[in-house]
């Protein structure tokens, strides 16, 4: 090296990313050696963004996000938690007025490289679990832009300690360095080993000593494990160059905070020329970079991106608590459990601490770690049960912390993605409300509709759907667009969900599905996913839906959920999206309703029975729709299940209609539905009605039956007009109701009959009068037709409808003539 003589050696602080012990040690080391500059492993493009770290509105966890300009899907993340050593170093330097630089390979190269390395990677595609392709140990995260919204594990990835943690490490041909060290120390789990020797140490002694030990161990490992990967070599060359530059510029002691794995490489002496050579000819991409808010959940491994730290909440606690971490932790847990109604006393806390410490001693660990505390909490505070423990894991071990980024931070990639789409779709953000109508058969309009639906899922209510003006058409959608300034804030908030509108909406929908409280909420969500064109979110939503349906024992909930679900199936059908999975779930849901309905109808009071009657109607329609969809040859649903769906529903209705113990309204409705479907002969319906309306049934029950049978929509009146027998039964029953009971049933009957159209009511009245006063008027029964009707079809009058029918159906004249005959008769009674 050139100027070594004058400049003291740099302080190399090798850390494990997101290690609270490392963070503490870094702070102590910086306090001690008072460097003239701090260099941090991270993308140099972010140097300009560093001052924002002290902004009062900046609250970790946050992440630096770099993505290729115009392609937010190709992105890389460097997350920082409060307890990340890098974050601590950053804050320390800013607080002490010491210059800070990021020294890793520029994101421009890493992003370009990542794409080059992996021809198969489609920008914006779903990120693979592993994070860095090369990952695992040794590689920088930088290298592999995790695609899409999947945050990678971030800077840490480096080899160091953390590399070891990710599953990616397994894929990598090289052994996990941490595992080697841990194995040498007699540990099965490398993470536990690292915690014991580094993270759980609390600082006495020389602040720099631990770093020397770690550096030495890493040096041994690097020589034992052989050559590093190319990408590592390139990154380290770059770091060395930047380090040299900084030492020349600032003089004095320069501190470097980087993954422990890189420390030996930075200490190595290589010529500038060799390092320059290594960096020559790297591909470059235009990159945009910014701060985005992050969450503990995304830091944690639970989020499904395969790498990260398992317990950010616990680490945060270790970092924050000045002393007695286990005692403080147990107190927090007790407080949480108490708030949730679990009886936990201080005595419990004491015992839990003792058990955790004894366990740690038995397992030979210096301090009770997460595993010991969790075991102790389960045995002492949770009565051995995992249920309250799950709460502890979720709220404390992982934690609900949500980061914040100041408004001054540059626009988020999500915002840029939205801007880009807005331009393509020619949708201007205007403050004034504007109504527009989309024809979903056109690509642009369909894309606009999808964008608005996605934004709504993200809580950005730019557009508000209006009831369609065109009536029932499935191809039209009406929206009211109105851009309000606070929507920008919402978009910034939504940035934590992903970098593209689609990715973020998918992530949000999946999270909503997991948290949804009611079954109907999830079916609604499924519908929204279809509208928003988020096929990737559907499997998760469907799974949540199936799970909840299976566990929900309230048939009412199931019946409520079914119609929306069936609508989704229909809708997807119209749009030719693949809804096979949806149809399967819907069929399963229907099946559960069938099984549970008869039992659920028993023992209901009047209000509940009325509500249940509504459910029966809704399920009836849904089943008809569902069976209709499934019958189409295109549908993929299992042939074994669907043909019988209607039949099985009819069987359920029969049970409902004939079981005496059920409320009258429901029995009546079931009878009517069967009758309308032609599954119940008229004689049988009449017999059922006769039974109900005979003296043995309390009048109120009979009136409820009539209400159920004749329906509240008024369609039942026509039935009475046409069926002499039914009318006679009603009439006979009504006249036989005892006077004191009559006042009781009157309101019900009035409600039922007043819903009929006036014409129908008049006809009914006429016929009842005629029926009761035999003599005048034409004899009702010479030709078997009811009074007021001709003996047979009147072709002349029936033909008058045909032109209108043709118009309605849009068919040729021949098609109509064959069909109009039979259908026309019912429609022309007067």
């Amino acid at each position, binding site marked *: 090296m050139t100027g070594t003589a004058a400049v003291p050696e740099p302080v190399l602080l090798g850390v494990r990313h997101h290690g609270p012990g490392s963070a503490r040690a870094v702070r102590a080391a910086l306090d001690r050696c008072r460097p003239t500059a701090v260099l941090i492993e991270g993308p140099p493009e972010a140097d300009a963004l560093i001052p924002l770290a002290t902004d009062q509105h900046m609250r970790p966890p946050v992440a630096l996000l770099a993505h290729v300009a115009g392609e937010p899907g190709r992105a890389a993340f460097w997350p920082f938690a409060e307890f990340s050593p890098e974050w601590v170093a950053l804050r320390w330097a800013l607080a002490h007025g010491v210059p800070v630089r990021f020294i890793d390979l520029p994101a421009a190269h890493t992003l370009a490289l990542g794409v080059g390395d992996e021809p198969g990677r489609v920008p914006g595609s779903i990120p693979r679990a592993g994070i860095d392709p090369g990952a695992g140990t040794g590689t920088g995260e930088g290298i592999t832009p995790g695609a899409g919204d999947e945050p990678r594990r971030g800077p840490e990835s480096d080899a160091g300690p953390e590399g070891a943690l990710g599953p990616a490490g397994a894929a990598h041909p090289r052994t996990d360095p941490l595992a080697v060290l841990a194995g040498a120390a007699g540990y099965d789990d490398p993470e536990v080993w690292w915690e014991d020797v580094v993270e759980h140490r609390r600082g006495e002694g020389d602040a720099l000593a631990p770093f020397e030990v770690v550096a030495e161990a890493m040096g041994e490992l690097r020589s034992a494990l052989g050559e590093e990967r190319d990408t590592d070599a390139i990154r380290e060359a770059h770091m060395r160059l930047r380090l040299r530059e900084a030492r020349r510029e600032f003089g004095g002691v320069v501190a470097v905070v980087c993954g422990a794995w890189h420390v030996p490489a930075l200490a190595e002496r290589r010529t500038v020329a060799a390092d320059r050579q290594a960096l020559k000819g790297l591909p470059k991409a235009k990159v945009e970079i910014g701060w985005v808010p992050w969450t503990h959940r995304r830091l944690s491994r639970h989020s499904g991106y395969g790498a990260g730290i398992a317990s950010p909440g616990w680490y945060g606690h270790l970092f924050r608590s000045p002393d007695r971490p286990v005692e403080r932790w147990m107190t927090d847990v007790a407080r949480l459990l108490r708030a949730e109604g679990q*009886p936990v*006393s201080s*005595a*419990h806390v004491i*015992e839990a601490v*003792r*058990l955790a410490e*004894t*366990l740690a001693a*038995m*397992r030979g660990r210096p301090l009770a770690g997460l*595993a010991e505390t969790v*075991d*102790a909490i*389960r*045995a*002492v505070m*949770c*009565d*051995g*049960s995992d249920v309250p423990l799950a709460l502890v894991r979720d709220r404390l071990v992982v934690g609900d912390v949500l980061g914040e980024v100041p408004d001054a931070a540059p626009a988020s990639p999500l915002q840029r993605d939205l801007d880009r789409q807005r331009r393509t779709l020619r949708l201007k953000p205007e403050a004034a409300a504007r109504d527009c109508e989309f024809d979903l058969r056109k690509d642009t309009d369909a894309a606009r509709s999808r964008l608005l639906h996605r934004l709504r899922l993200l809580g950005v209510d730019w557009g508000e759907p209006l009831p369609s003006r065109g009536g029932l058409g499935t191809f039209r959608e009406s929206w009211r667009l109105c851009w309000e300034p606070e929507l920008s804030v919402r978009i910034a908030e939504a940035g934590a969900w992903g970098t593209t509108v689609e990715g973020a909406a998918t992530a949000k929908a999946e999270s909503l599905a997991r948290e949804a409280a009611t079954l109907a909420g999830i079916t609604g969500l499924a519908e929204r996913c279809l509208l928003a064109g988020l096929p990737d979110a559907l499997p998760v939503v469907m799974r949540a839906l*199936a*799970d*909840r*349906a*299976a*566990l929900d*024992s309230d048939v009412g909930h199931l019946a409520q959920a079914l119609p929306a679900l069936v609508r989704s199936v229909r809708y997807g059908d119209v749009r030719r999206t693949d809804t096979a999975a949806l149809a399967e779930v819907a069929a*399963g849901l229907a*099946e*559960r309703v*069938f*099984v*549970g309905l008869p*039992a659920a109808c028993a023992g209901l009071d009047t209000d509940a029975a009325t509500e249940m009657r509504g459910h029966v109607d809704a399920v009836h329609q849904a089943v008809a729709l569902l069976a209709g969809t499934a019958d189409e040859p295109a549908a993929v649903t*299992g042939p*074994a*299940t669907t043909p019988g769906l209607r039949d099985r529903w009819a069987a359920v209705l029969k049970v409902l209609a004939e079981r005496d113990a059920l409320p009258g309204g429901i029995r009546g409705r079931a009878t009517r539905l069967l009758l309308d479907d032609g599954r119940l002969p008229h004689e049988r319906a009449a017999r059922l009605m006769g039974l109900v309306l005979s003296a043995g049934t309390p009048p109120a029950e009979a009136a409820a039956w009539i209400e159920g049978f004749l329906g509240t929509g008024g369609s039942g009146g026509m039935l009475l007009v046409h069926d002499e027998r039914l009318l006679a039964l009603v009439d006979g029953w009504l006249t036989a109701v005892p006077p004191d009971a009559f006042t009781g049933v009157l309101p019900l009957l009035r409600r039922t009959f007043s819903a009929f159209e006036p014409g129908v009511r008049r006809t009914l009245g006429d016929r009842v009068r005629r029926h009761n006063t035999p003599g005048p008027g034409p004899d009702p029964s010479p030709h078997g037709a009811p009074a007021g009707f001709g003996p047979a079809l009147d072709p002349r009058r029936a033909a008058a409808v045909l032109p209108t029918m043709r118009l309605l159906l849009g068919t040729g004249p021949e098609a109509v003539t064959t069909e109009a005959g039979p259908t026309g008769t019912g429609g022309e009674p007067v």
Partner: protein
Amino acid sequence: MTVPGIQTDALRPHAEDAFAHELKALAAADDRPRPERWRLSPWAVAMYLLGGTLPDGTVITPKYVGPRRIVEVAVTTLATDRALLLLGVPGTAKTWVSEHLAAAVSGDSTLLVQGTAGTPEEAIRYGWNYARLLAEGPSRDALVPSPVMRAMAEGMTARVEELTRIPADVQDTLITVLSEKTLPVPELGQEVQAVRGFNLIATANDRDRGVNELSSALRRRFNTVVLPLPATAEDEVGIVARRVDQIGRSLDLPATPDGIDEIRRVVTVFRELRDGVTADGRTRLKSPSGTLSTAEAISVVTGGLALAAHFGDGVLRAGDVAAGILGAVVRDPAADRVIWQEYLETVVRERDGWKDFYRACREVAA
């Protein structure tokens, strides 16, 4: 109570006798610190239960097959002065674990109180030898100590089986023992203080509702460890098959060569309903109110075997177990029946090769 000396022809020898050589080898190899009056260190106790090989080549057989964590927490609890409560459905080896823990820690697993609805206070505190009481008046000699009292005096591990079956007022006599570590004898104006090394292991069944729940005052004195059901279906099929075989032989039922498939089916049904999810993990199910423990699966299969042997063709078929399963699953006639029907319609009907079972169940349920 206990007869001193080892009976070699005992039908079932105590754990400390049956595994005496393992305990001896462990004690010899064990160089870690032992709590006072413990025969082994906590580490060696855990090894005794979980199995392993000692440096001198002695193989320690595993006594408990299950998560290591559970054994570690249990042993650690005994090393503190908190009592240990083992919870679990029947057939999860609670008694077995408690016996072996006592044998390894104190070398004596016989200080046992069997909990029943009729367990009196004397079984936990002390009774009197009335002949002596009348002849000599109240004295220490006329007092008959309970196993708990002996364990306290000698610093041993006492065991209480089926704690939740003991009437609540009798249960609560344990509170003084566990918190004050003393047992007063007011008749003599004396007390028996527990010496170091004393602790108590209780077992209880956590699925039987309606028995005597522990008062929270008592519950607080225990660290609770829940023993899980067999982790995999294969484990459970193995357990059921082995037990059925033993029972079948003692009932002189003919051996059934093809029964294993039917056993697997019964175990699958039980596990799926118990766990509330199908074996492939794709469909959630409701769980019925019954325990559906391994023990019940065993009795369903045994009953099916008897049916097949006496009224069928000697081969265990779907029809032979269907009625038994229905009886085990449908405990609450209203809610459980719906759950069972849902299961039949949404899971069983669609499953390949289960047609016969579906039909048999439909027939029984009708």
